[in-house]
């Protein structure tokens, strides 16, 4: 089992495209990556209940790392924690990492069997490749 990844965004299109980009790095490999994005009617927004469901779906026992786009998505994700069973909540990490850049690194190390702490740390250094290239 690997750590699961959850993408919380105001935009369904953004989340789906980010996941597609990241999954490129997993040719033929499996990983639970769940999306909670957009409002029910297809607009821009987040839904704490959808985040909660996505976390439960992505959690295979090793916990999840949750990436969010903007501050209000963080509020929804924090609220989502309240609706999770205690054991699932305790193994959920909300990450302030850059959504797109962090996701790519996170899926690679998660698929490699890294721990939740390692996945979150890799997401957090998501800007490093761009910074190194621009130095």
């Amino acid at each position: 089992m690997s750590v699961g990844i959850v993408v919380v965004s105001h935009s369904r299109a953004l989340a789906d495209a980010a996941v597609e980009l990241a999954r490129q790095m997993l040719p033929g490999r499996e990983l639970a990556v769940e999306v909670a994005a957009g409002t029910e009617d297809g607009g821009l927004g987040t839904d704490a209940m959808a985040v909660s469901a996505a976390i439960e779906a992505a959690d295979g026992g090793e916990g999840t790392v949750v990436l969010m786009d903007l501050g209000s998505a963080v509020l929804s994700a924090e609220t989502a924690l309240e609706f999770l069973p205690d054991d699932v909540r305790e193994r959920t990490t909300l990450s302030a990492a850059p959504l797109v850049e962090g996701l790519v690194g996170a899926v690679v190390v998660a698929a490699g069997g890294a721990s939740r702490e390692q996945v979150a740390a890799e997401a957090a250094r998501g800007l490093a490749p761009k910074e190194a290239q621009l130095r």
Partner: protein
Amino acid sequence: MNPEELTAWLRRFAELVHEHRDELTALDSAIGDADHGANLDRGMTAVLAALQEAPPADAAALLKKTGATLVSKVGGASGPLYGTLFLRMAGAVDGGFAPALRAGFDGVLARGKAEPGDKTMVDALGPACDVLDAGGSVAEAAQAAADGRDATVPLVARKGRASYLGERSAGHADPGATSTALLLRAAAETLR
């Protein structure tokens, strides 16, 4: 508190939100993403539908359902914030409106980490709670919320989307403080 008076309050709030939908959106257009009216209208419409569909047995269940619906349906930051307000009220409603609203306010503070003066709904909700805790009437609390909303006009936003604007956020009332003033006005019109 009984479910009937809470339902009356929520119905009136939904009505006021619907009436002021464009005004709330216009305020959010000046310092945000122009959706606060649409967000809250969608959320409160969903709340009324949920309460209608399966009327909760008691006040706590009703507030819980209200909160759970808002965190799901509003879409914006005000969803988890108003949602948490009602979820926390559910745990304190046995003591009456004043302690319930105070518990809700504490929930909003914990969720959003805003402080008074950050130009958020906190600036309308806090003064209303203070009035109630000091033994004031719900009408007086509603006036305090309206004054708090007005006092957000000159403030520079330090939380939420409006904070991206920096100094440019000054000169406009905060949308969330404005809807909170409506929440208290609805309370003054429906609760003794």
